């Protein structure tokens, strides 16, 4: 049990941090929902960062740390699935990677080169042609898309499907950890500056306690995501994803409530993180789906 980063992990996360910093702030003239970071993805590709999970001294845990950090940027990059799930796919599959779950719109689907298609228990992979996918306008602050064509599907074996599902849970939790932290940071800044009744909002205990509870949840999501990335254990992955969706549900509401009317604007960046959190809440069956996985993997088959 060792909670400090190794020198390799520190070097890698420092490098990711230097790249991410250029994309942390929302451009002041951007007043939209989906802020996608093509330039950020380009830099990550150039540095070969999408394959770090395969390098022994880094592994999935370091990849999860990178995903967590990148999710804190205002610009969204398809990093979580590429860094944590793609290395687990049987055979060579190009990135970006996106998930189509029960035919619904998904993050990065319109630009994905590999689709993970979930249909009930069955998981298949596909290489979509440009005409197979289309962009969808949404509130989710990720570039969303949907599958409209019928690309050839490569069905995964039950074991591969279970493994992919597990790493999708880890990816979801690591990404949620970063999003939640960024939403908290953004809210703390507002509560420290905005004054009412002659003092900063952050001095009022009614808000302080709720913020502190959210901070505890955020830390829990981070710890569980890191543990799951380290262990690659089915139960750990299910617990991490459940805690992420559970905490994210509360967080998405609380942070906007704290920001008041400012949080309603597209001028303030908060929605970039909270609405991305909302995009994660329904994935892999939502909380009910994760709970079922916890029941199976942590409590044995019901």
């Amino acid at each position, binding site marked *: 049990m*060792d909670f400090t980063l190794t020198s390799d992990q520190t070097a890698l996360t420092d490098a990711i941090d230097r790249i991410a910093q250029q994309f942390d702030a929302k451009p002041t003239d951007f007043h939209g929902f989906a802020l996608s970071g093509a330039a950020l993805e380009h830099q990550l590709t150039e540095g070969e960062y999408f394959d770090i999970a395969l390098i022994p001294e880094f592994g999935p845990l370091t990849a999860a740390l990178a995903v967590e950090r990148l999710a804190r940027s205002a610009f969204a990059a398809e990093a979580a699935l590429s860094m944590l799930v793609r290395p687990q796919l049987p055979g060579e599959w190009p990135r970006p990677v996106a998930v189509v779950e029960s035919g619904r719109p998904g993050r990065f689907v319109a630009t994905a080169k590999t689709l993970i298609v979930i249909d009930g228990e069955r998981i298949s992979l596909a290489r979509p042609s440009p005409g197979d996918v289309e962009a969808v306008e949404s509130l989710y602050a990720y570039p969303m898309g949907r599958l409209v064509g019928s690309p050839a599907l490569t069905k995964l074996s039950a074991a591969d499907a279970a493994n992919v599902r597990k790493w999708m849970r880890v990816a979801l939790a690591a990404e949620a950890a970063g999003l939640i932290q960024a939403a908290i940071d953004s809210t703390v800044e507002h509560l420290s500056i905005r004054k009412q009744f002659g003092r900063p909002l952050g001095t009022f205990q009614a808000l302080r306690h709720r913020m502190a509870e959210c901070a505890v949840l955020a830390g829990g999501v981070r710890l569980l995501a890191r543990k799951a990335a380290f262990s690659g254990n089915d139960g750990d992955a299910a617990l991490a994803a459940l805690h992420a969706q559970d905490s994210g549900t509360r967080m998405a509401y609380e942070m906007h409530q704290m920001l008041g009317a400012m949080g309603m604007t597209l001028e303030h960046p908060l929605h970039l993180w909270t609405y991305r959190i909302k995009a994660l809440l329904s994935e892999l069956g939502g909380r009910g789906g994760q709970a079922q996985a916890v029941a199976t993997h942590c409590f044995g088959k019901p």
Partner: protein
Amino acid sequence: MEFDWTPEQLSFRATVRSFLAEHLPPNWETVAHGPASEVQSEFADVFCRKLAEAGLLVPHWPARWGGRDADAWTAFILAEEMWMAGEPRGGQYMNVNWIGPTLMRFGSEEQQQRYIPPMAGGATIWCQGFSEPEAGSDLASLRTRADRHGSNYRINGQKIWTSYAGYADTCFLLARTSPGKNGISIFLIPMETPGITVRQIPSVIGEGDIHEVFFDEVEVPGTAMLGAEGQAWEITRTALSLERVGIPRFALASLMLHRAVDRLKKAGRYGGGAIEQSARAHAACESARLYSYNIIDQRVRGIATGPEASAARVATVSAERLVGEFVVEHCPEALAGGEPMLQAHHQRAIVAGIASGAAEIQLNLIATELLKLPREPR
């Protein structure tokens, strides 16, 4: 960063488990009611001496004081296994966790020689005279007075919620020697000193846990003072930081959650809402576990723990609550004679957010020190 146990840690845990298997009586779970019940306290007295003989009472203490200089992981693994077994050490866990180490750091040679060996031998119980009727979370407002009379101090006042006072040999007492926050001092007082009266408070936690303790003209020598006059705040802060992540409550909560789920499965009642609620409670337990392990890791590295210890407490409170709510909703028979350990856990879980600094105090600390929000006006 890694989340595995070392072979030595696994082996130590196995040693503790086999000791427990060998020394806990077959009916232990049915007698393990009430953290300081008569039967549990009498058992603890014998059990702790055996633990000491086996080198399992204070392994993390310095060799000079009967330990073997083992690290904080050893102490925490020991604490996890003991707490999961219903804490057969009774009130002696406090000696092991913080009273002993605090005396090693701040005690006089005479105090150390007098008090530490009996702790290391498992032969003594202490109680902690902190809270008062008018001073709970606001501990600095305590009123119990210690007035100097020549070389002695005369103590008058009242303590409340004092755990294990009915069986304790010695009290770690906070009393006021002058006005203000820096006017509080610590006294180590034998409970047999004339003028001390203990009255048990019946409680939902279980038999024998909380008490009122009255001090009426209790005369103690100046040598009973721990540290210097007015040093209580500094010493207590150190002690409480050890206490804050002292009891691994998440471990028993998790064990009881699994046990409740097993009961429901056997009865064919595990499905729907029970699945969701149990999974959520389990995630909360594991979050609290990792938070706590993070603090132990900091202790091992000699890093001063900050607001993360408060976060660990809050995470633990949440885990206890979710497990408690799950049991009440889906396994209600547990609190009606159906499963003694589940009931005992439920009774003890209520303490999680209250003892050693209320959860709301922790939330304030997190807001200020972790989130860096501006302080609230006083």
